C-alpha cells in the first residue's frame, strides 16, 4: 500500500534565552494508507512538536516530512490539501457559529463548496449524534460536543491524512466512546491514514494496531500493539486473600523479588507474583501457610498497554539512553 505519511530524520530544537532545547532528534517513521497509529509519550516528549511539523505549523531544523508525497514546506498548498488536524489545546472551531455554519465554513477553508459536500456534512452530523444541535452555536455546546464538532470539521472534506492530537482529552466516558467508534469508522470505511496522539491507553488499545512511543524527542518503540503486549507478557498471578496478614508476614513478603503486596482497606489483600522464578511462589505460599491465611482465589494477571508504556519509557530512562531531547543542547 502507498505510504501516505513519511517522516524522515526530523530534528527540532527550540531557542530558549541563550540556549537551545532539543524537542525532537532524528525521528523517522512511515504510515501506509488506511493505517491508524498511536503516537504515545509522556508530557514534553515531543509529540505535539511532531504533529505541528507534519501540519506545517513548526519548521523542522533537519529532515523532511511528506504528506501524500508533498512536502508541507516546499509544496505547502498541495500538502495541506491532503490533511486535516484537530490540535490539542485549541478550540479548532468558531464559537459564535452554529454546528452547520462551522462545517460549511471549514469546508470552504479547504477549498470545497459547502453545497457540494452537503451529504457528507449531514452524514457527519448524524454519525456524531449532533442532529439536535445543528443550529446551536458551538459556544453553547458541551465540551464533549465541541470536541466532536472539531472532529467533524476535520473530516468535512475527504482528505487522506488525519492528525488528531489528544482528541478525547477531558471528555466523559460516553463522548470518548463515540469518538472511538468514529475513529474506527473513518479507518475502516474511508481508509484514512490517522496519526493519533493520546494518553488514553484504552483508546489506543481499542483503535490502534500500531504504536510509536516517543520519549525525550526520540522514538523508543515502533511496533504493533500485539507484539508489544507479547513482548512484555510475563507469567504473573494475583492471590486474593480472605484475611489480613500480620506485619511480620508483610515484611517477609516485601523481601521477595518481583512480588507486590496490595493491602487495600475495605477491598481485601492481594499479592501479585511474577513467576519468572518459581521459587518466589513457593516462598509466598510458605509464608501464607505459616499463618493458615485463607486464599480465596488465584487469577492470571494480564499486562495492559499502560504497563507496557511505563515499562518502555521507564526502562529507557533507567538505562540512561534518553539522549539529549527535551534538554539544553
Amino acid at each position, binding site marked *: 500500500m502507498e505510504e501516505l505519511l513519511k517522516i524522515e530524520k526530523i530534528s*527540532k530544537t*527550540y*531557542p530558549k534565552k541563550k540556549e537551545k532545547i532539543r*524537542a525532537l532528534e532524528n525521528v523517522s517513521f512511515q504510515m501506509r494508507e488506511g493505517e491508524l497509529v498511536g503516537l504515545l509519550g509522556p508530557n514534553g516528549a515531543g509529540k505535539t*512538536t511532531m504533529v*505541528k511539523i507534519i*501540519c*506545517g*505549523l*513548526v*519548521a523542522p531544523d533537519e529532515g523532511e516530512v511528506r504528506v501524500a508525497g508533498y512536502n508541507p514546506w516546499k509544496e*505547502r*498548498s*498541495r500538502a*495541506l*490539501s491532503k*490533511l*486535516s*488536524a484537530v*490540535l490539542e*489545546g*485549541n*478550540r*479548532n*472551531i*468558531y*464559537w*459564535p*457559529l452554529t454546528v452547520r*455554519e462551522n462545517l*460549511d*465554513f*471549514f469546508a*470552504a*477553508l*479547504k*477549498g*470545497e*463548496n*459547502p453545497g457540494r459536500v452537503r451529504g457528507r456534512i449531514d452524514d457527519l452530523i448524524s454519525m456524531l449524534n449532533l442532529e439536535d444541535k445543528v443550529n446551536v452555536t458551538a459556544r453553547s455546546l458541551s465540551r464533549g460536543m465541541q470536541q466532536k464538532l472539531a472532529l467533524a*470539521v476535520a473530516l468535512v472534506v475527504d482528505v487522506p491524512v488525519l492528525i488528531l492530537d489528544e482528541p478525547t482529552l477531558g471528555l466523559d466516558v460516553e463522548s470518548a466512546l463515540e469518538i472511538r467508534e468514529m475513529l474506527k469508522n473513518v479507518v475502516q470505511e474511508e481508509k484514512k491514514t490517522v496519526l493519533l496522539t493520546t494518553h488514553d491507553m484504552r483508546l489506543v488499545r481499542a483503535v490502534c494496531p500500531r504504536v510509536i512511543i516517543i520519549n525525550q524527542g526520540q522514538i523508543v518503540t515502533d511496533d504493533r500493539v500485539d507484539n508489544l503486549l507479547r513482548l512484555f507478557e510475563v507469567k504473573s498471578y494475583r492471590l486474593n486473600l480472605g484475611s489480613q496478614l500480620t506485619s511480620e508476614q508483610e515484611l517477609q513478603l516485601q523481601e521477595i523479588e518481583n512480588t507486590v503486596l496490595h493491602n487495600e482497606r475495605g477491598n481485601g489483600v492481594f499479592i501479585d507474583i511474577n513467576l519468572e522464578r518459581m521459587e518466589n511462589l513457593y516462598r509466598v505460599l510458605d509464608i501464607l501457610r505459616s499463618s493458615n491465611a485463607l486464599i480465596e482465589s488465584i487469577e492470571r494477571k494480564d499486562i495492559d498497554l499502560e504497563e507496557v508504556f511505563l515499562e518502555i519509557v521507564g526502562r529507557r530512562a533507567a538505562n540512561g539512553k534518553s539522549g539529549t531531547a527535551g534538554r539544553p543542547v
Partner: protein
Amino acid sequence: MGNLVLLGAQFKREFIYLKRYFFNFLGGFVTLYVVFLLIFFGFRGIAGGTEMYGAGLGNLIVGYVTWVLAMMIYQDVSYNLFNEAREGILEQLYMSPFGYVRVTSFRLIAGLVIHLSMSVVILVAMMLSTGRYLNLDLISLVPLVAMLLIPVAGLGFILGGLQLLYKRIQSILQVVQFLLVGVVAAPIGLGWTQFLPGTLASHLVREVMVNEISFTSLPGNQSLLALGIALFYALLGIGVFRFCERRAMISGRLGQF
C-alpha cells in the same frame, strides 16, 4: 473556483457575525457618530459659536470618515490575528491550502463591504447633521478609497507580523490606531508626508469630495504615485508578515499567545 468559495464563506461568516452581534455593531456606529458630533460642536464652542462652513467643514467630515475606514481595516488585520490566536483558531486557518494571507485578505474584503456600508451611513448622518453636502462621485471615489485602504492594510500586516513574534503588543496597536488620524489627515505640502500609507490617497479623496474634482481631472502623477504607494505598502506588509511568520514557525510560537 476555490477562491470564490472561500470569499463567499468569508462574506457569509461576516454577515452572520453582524447579525449575531448587531447591537455591538450598532453601538460602534453610534459611538463614532457621537464622537464626530462632539468634535463638530466642540470646535464651534471653542470658536465662540462661530459656524464651521465651506472647505474646512468638508475636510473635517472627509478626514473623519476616511480615518474611520482606515481604522477599521487596520483593526481587521491586526486585532483579528490576536483574536484568532486567543480563540484557538489561528492554526486551523494556517492549515488552509489557501494560506493565511489569502484567508485574511478575503476576510478583509468581506469586512470591507460592511465597513463601507457603515461609513456611508455615518457620512450621510454627518452631512445631514452639519448641513454640508459633499460630492459622492462613486466612479472617482472607488479607486481612490482602494488606494487609501490598501496601504493601511499593509500597515496592519506589518503590525500583525510583529504580533506573531512578540505576542502581546496591544498597546502599540492602539498607538498606531490613533497615529492613523495624523496619517490620513496629514497635508501633502511637506513633501515627505505624501509617502505615508494612505496620506496622498486621502488628500485625493478630499479633492474629489470637497473640491468636486473628478478622478480624471486629478493630477495624473499624483494618482500614479498614490497607486505606487499603495502597492509598496501592500507588498512591504505582506513581506514583513511572511518574514515574521517564518520566524514564528521556526521558534514554534505561531499559535502561542
